[in-house]
């Protein structure tokens, strides 16, 4: 992360990450968040008294109530604390807490995001997020937006249907092995993939809550590698989709460039050990390989096995969004999965000796904004 101009700033360190995801939660939203945060604090051996900042990220639309942070602030331990809620993207909460630490305004903060997609009318929300004059009349949805983008990409790339199906199978297999995934232990393929000159994919819904502990060096424990944020880039792209950029993700390319520059990465494919990215459809994962600078030919790179769990650069060892689409918290979950990888806490899907990882998050309609984070593990 870019540091202060002329004084040494604190480097944000991830001291813990916790994910709770399942196909459908029967607890109320407030209880679900409370249970997750309680589990997280207990696993980290941290008390609420130690927390000086809470940054949450939530979508009122997904939560079904206006200013949902009102009722959920208690669940995250927000009583008489500094609670800031962001509603643009879950990963923005991580970006902001990291900035608070770097600025010296927080020593240990909790970052939390959630979404109960199983109860949310996502298609209605998509429609309501369109401008009321043109977009809403056209009834653009995320599926149709994804179809438009992927059709443009497929027309100009050498990616085939087998590549798209292969990505989905890779991620579903990974998700089945990931103890944190909503599809953990599942052998069924519930995703509805459609390929016909374009790609749409409806993943299984998930309800998820994710918590990350971000602070300065004062909380470092000697038995765990320090996971530092060394690079970050966040970019929004214009709301009105330009036909020239349909088959590409210029926002992702720009966000990655910023993050790589901060982290002094020039050859991402060689210098990264593990990647978690937002596979909005399996085709989007292929697009991301190119925009993130791993390869110029996504199909060939995938077919070489490079992004498989045992490959040169494992991508989405967690299963990605294919492991359950929780919608709003998807981006922060990617950050948490990388943190767990680098801390050696990823369990059955852990990538051996991973020292440097990258998390990508995409949000907005249609996939308008991107964030890229580079995390590095120091010595325990």
């Amino acid at each position, binding site marked *: *992360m*870019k*540091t*202060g*101009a*002329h*004084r*040494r*700033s604190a480097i944000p360190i991830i001291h813990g990450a916790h994910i709770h995801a399942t196909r459908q939660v029967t607890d109320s939203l407030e209880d679900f968040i409370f249970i997750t945060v309680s589990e997280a604090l207990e696993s980290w051996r941290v008390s609420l008294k130690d927390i000086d900042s809470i940054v949450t990220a*939530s*979508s*009122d639309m997904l939560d*079904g*109530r*206006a*200013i949902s*942070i*009102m*009722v959920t*602030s*208690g669940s995250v331990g927000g*009583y*008489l*604390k*500094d*609670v*800031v*809620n*962001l*509603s*643009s993207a879950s990963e*923005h909460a991580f*970006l*902001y807490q990291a*900035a*608070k*630490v*770097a*600025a*010296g*305004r927080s020593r240990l903060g909790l970052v939390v995001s959630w979404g109960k997609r199983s109860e949310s009318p996502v298609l209605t*929300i998509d429609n*309501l*997020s*369109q*401008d*009321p*004059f043109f977009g809403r009349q056209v009834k653009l949805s995320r599926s149709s937006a994804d179809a438009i983008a992927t059709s443009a990409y497929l027309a100009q790339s050498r990616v085939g249907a087998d590549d798209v199906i292969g990505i989905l199978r890779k991620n579903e297999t990974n998700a089945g092995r990931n103890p944190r995934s909503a599809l953990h232990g599942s052998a069924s393929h519930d995703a509805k993939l459609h390929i016909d000159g374009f790609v749409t994919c409806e993943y299984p819904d998930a309800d998820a809550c994710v918590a990350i502990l971000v602070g300065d060096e004062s909380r470092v424990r000697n038995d765990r590698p320090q996971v530092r944020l060394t690079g*970050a880039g*966040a*970019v*929004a*792209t*214009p*709301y009105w989709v330009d036909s020239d950029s349909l088959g590409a993700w210029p926002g992702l390319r*720009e966000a990655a460039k910023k993050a790589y520059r901060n982290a002094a990465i020039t050859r991402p494919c060689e210098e990264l050990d593990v990647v978690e990215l937002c596979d909005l459809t399996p085709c989007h994962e292929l697009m991301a390989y190119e925009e993130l600078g791993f390869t110029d030919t996504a199909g060939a790179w995938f077919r070489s096995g490079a992004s498989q769990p045992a490959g040169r650069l494992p991508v989405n060892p967690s299963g990605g969004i294919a492991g359950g689409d929780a919608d709003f918290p998807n981006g922060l979950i990617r950050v948490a999965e990388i943190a767990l990888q680098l801390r050696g806490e990823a369990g059955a899907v852990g990538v051996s000796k991973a020292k440097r990882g990258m998390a990508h998050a995409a949000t*907005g309609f249609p996939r*308008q*904004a991107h*964030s890229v984070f580079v995390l590095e593990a120091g010595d325990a």
Partner: protein
Amino acid sequence: MSLREVAAIAVGQTQYKRRYTELTYPELIFTAVTRALEDARATIDDVDAVILPMAVDALGGVAHAERWATDALGGGGKPVIRVNTGGVTGLTAVQVAHDFVASGAFNVVLIAGADRVGESGDAQSILNRIWDPIYERPLPLNTITMLAMQAVRFMEKYGATEVDMARVAVKNHTNGARNPYAHIRQEVTLDEVLLSRMIAYPIKLFDSCPQSSGAAAMILCAEDETYRFSNQPAWIRGLGHSSETYWMGDRMGPALDCDHADSIALTHACNQAYSAAGIRAGDLDIAELYAPFSNTELHAVQDAGLCEKGEAMKLLEEGYFDSDGEIPVNPSGGVMCANPISVTALVRVIEAVLQVQGRAGDHQVTGAEYALATGIGGDHQFFGAVVVSSIKACRKDIT
């Protein structure tokens, strides 16, 4: 305090009024952003990141309208981050922007947003949706009734009367009449306030904020960069943010922790800001306190430490908080004269900035050097405070 000093170097506002049928939400924002950039003698390329305060989606009628507004914000190629903490959103956005600049992540950050409260159809029906859907929504709960309960409790605890509330209304309307941006620019008499229509006892029409539409913007900048934009930076000297329980019932009854009449979280937030600024409440020259109803200003002046508990009413009557008083409170007219919810707390900071820059025009308080701005969000739950000053902090070097 933080790593490097941060200053507000430009502001932009639209007039606040009942409706803006000629401008869309992004166009409203664009208007304020353009004015802020002109104020800074800057272009959008000078901005590194954008923070958008936006509270209740339904008031504007578009879900996640921060996406729709990206182009109007000049957000292409930059992070666009939306803050949503209810009524304090605009001030929380200042905190977020400040921290990003202080950390070194960005040098110049734009804060810009808008709202169109009165154009939503029935704002209070929408605001009823902040409550629990099973138990609370069926009650006649909205932001007016929730603060009417605060008023009743305050009156019981401190002996305040409807006349005291009316005095706040008279003061603020007098001030608002001198503010060219205010929605309500009409003086009222004590009798007019007391005889106005009862909304929710004891809050009457003229004790209440309007439902406003409008936009506001502010640009924050790192200390090394201010020379490029302004010769009158307003330094962000202190920040504070704290929150109480959501459950109002826990602020009532014999087992209460925080009393619904008061706000310990506002006191915490103000003390954090004063401490960071190295000042006491008595060092302030003006205060822009978030007070959408007259009763809320009575508790706010006490909880911000501008007077002792129980003294607000007497001092108000003596003119202590008038524009020419000992500590002018809401010389702009405050929230009672304009309430475009998503940016209302940002406007408090903007007014504080204008005061210490000497640019508040007809409602300028002479010689203002230290100003406090506060914000309130949720059900009297989230509180924020900012101290701005024309005087830069004197800092010891740290390694």
